């Protein structure tokens, strides 16, 4: 990102929050993750990390439901 720290809020306000842009963020992020961890000989680690995050997310979920344990 070729932006100075002082100009960061101004540059964020100039972003286009269109759906195609948002999906582009998720797509690029998932491609980076996929190519780095899954698209290799050791694709098991990539998948296990996703599953571990899934388990943790499901564990945290009751605490996010508005003080319902």
């Amino acid at each position, binding site marked *: 990102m070729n932006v100075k720290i002082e100009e960061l809020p101004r540059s964020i306000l100039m972003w286009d929050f269109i759906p195609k842009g948002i999906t582009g963020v998720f797509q690029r992020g998932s491609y980076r993750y996929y190519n780095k961890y899954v698209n290799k*000989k050791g694709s098991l680690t990539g998948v296990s990390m996703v599953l571990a995050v899934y388990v943790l997310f499901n564990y945290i979920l009751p605490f996010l*439901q508005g003080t319902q344990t």
Partner: protein
Amino acid sequence: MNENLFASFATPTMMGLPIVILIIMFPSILFPSSNRLINNRLISIQQWLVQLTSKQMMAIHNNKGQTWTLMLMSLILFIGSTNLLGLLPHSFTPTTQLSMNLGMAIPLWAGTVFMGFRHKTKAALAHFLPQGTPIFLIPMLVIIETISLFIQPMALAVRLTANITAGHLLIHLIGGATLALMDISPSTALITFIILILLTILEFAVAMIQAYVFTLLVSLYLHDNT
């Protein structure tokens, strides 16, 4: 204790937003698609499994039946992956909800029935009366066959729901019993062993998919070929 036992089957919400949809879409992340001829290990294994299953399953159909291959393969992958992901701790299994299983069973069953009635009307109607029944039994037998036809989607849905729900409940119960018995020693070893066996048996939830798709398949086969 009662509230805790069934709380895991409540549809998950996060701060008021239903995230069930995200959880239902999650297994699709684990099946990446690729345009290459030679893929990485994950995709190669998945492709091999899908080819094995599709050849096994669609071999008994004629051309018209084999147009359903994509649908049935997606079905078995979805139910299989969803059930297996539900075995992870704290996770929510969408196939424990009867609503979802009915949503899968009724349209598919109706599709096969309508296909049979449209292409082979006489054969489809002939299903309602087995060959060689005595004449005075005919009205009752027609009623019974109609009921057995209409119960097919219900059976499909309820079978899947009940099996997965019962398995999860048993795991909860026996796990809780193990924890409670931890202070009273010798039984613990035996119960932990039972938990292990139960989990293994539950991994035959994948066999449930086989049952599901196979039943649907047999239905399609009967409607198309007979």
